[in-house]
């Protein structure tokens, strides 16, 4: 059974993991769960333990202080585990991409996880500063296969 079909059959339960963010993306996650946007239409449920989660919503640029706890939380999530890196900080490091106290977003984390032998089945990047609740809904719909991917790598040749 492929990853996509296994996720499609059940509801993606999400675990909200703050790794040192400014709380803007966190508020937008809560906004997406309110009756106005209502992410629960897609079966999304916010759970309190990573052991119950299918999807980990990762916000923040992953500070060095929070790194051991982040690794523990991701290790605790059962397979197949999906990480959704939210915001500019989560997906690319944001303004703090080269500071001494962060590891620069989810790409730095994936290298460390690979060294430790923790496998992650899929990583979704959701840019935005902060993300709109609609952007999060779009990402969830993308995971479930409701909408198609719009963004592609573009290479232009100018003379």
């Amino acid at each position, binding site marked *: 059974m492929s990853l996509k079909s296994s996720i499609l059959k059940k509801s993606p339960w999400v675990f909200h993991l703050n790794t040192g963010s400014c709380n803007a993306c966190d508020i937008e996650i809560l906004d997406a769960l309110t009756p106005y946007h209502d992410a629960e239409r897609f079966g999304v449920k916010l759970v309190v333990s990573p052991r119950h989660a299918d999807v980990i919503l990762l916000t923040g640029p992953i500070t060095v202080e929070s790194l051991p706890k982040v690794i523990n939380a991701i290790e605790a999530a059962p397979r197949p585990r999906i990480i959704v890196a939210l915001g500019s900080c989560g997906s690319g490091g944001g303004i703090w991409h080269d500071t001494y106290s962060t590891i620069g977003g989810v790409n730095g984390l994936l290298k460390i996880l690979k060294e430790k032998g923790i496998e992650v089945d899929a990583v979704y990047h959701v840019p935005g500063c902060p993300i709109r609740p609609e952007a999060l809904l779009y990402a969830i719909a993308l995971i479930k296969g409701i909408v198609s991917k719009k963004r592609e790598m573009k290479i232009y040749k*100018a003379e």
Partner: protein
Amino acid sequence: MSIKPVKLIVIAGKKGRVTVKYPFQEPIITPEFRGEVEIDPAKCIGCGACVRACPPNALELLESEKEIILRYFVGRCIFCWRCVDVCPVSAIKGTKNFELATDKFTDLYTLVVHTRATCELCGTPAETVRMRRYITEKVPISEEYITTCPTCRKKQFAEKIAMRKVGISELKK
């Protein structure tokens, strides 16, 4: 104390449905909303003004021997639109696009590849071809010295001074 269920149903009935059907309808966006920026490759001259202005270094200039590449990494962009303000040829335009979620990291890149011009005398790589054309249009007198690099320009100037003072070029010996 607490609202009775019957009362609650009445309130909910008056309010009606509030949930938006977002992925199946157009998103509601305010006119002030700032989304991803779009680089027009037909206009861009590769000057690097946007690179200087960008707070999180989402725009970067990658220099190699023959090419200068302007790389836009939307995963790090904070959508401040400073690049839109500083661009001298208004090649960068702001859009309202926010549906950028991908499962592949490389999808977030936009590359604009520029060809590099070289110095006529020593052959070291200089600014882009477009940049040279833009400068010549703006400052016509620069046509005389634009094809040489600053080091060669200094040497030429020193030679000219030597010719005037001594009558013969000392640097050529």
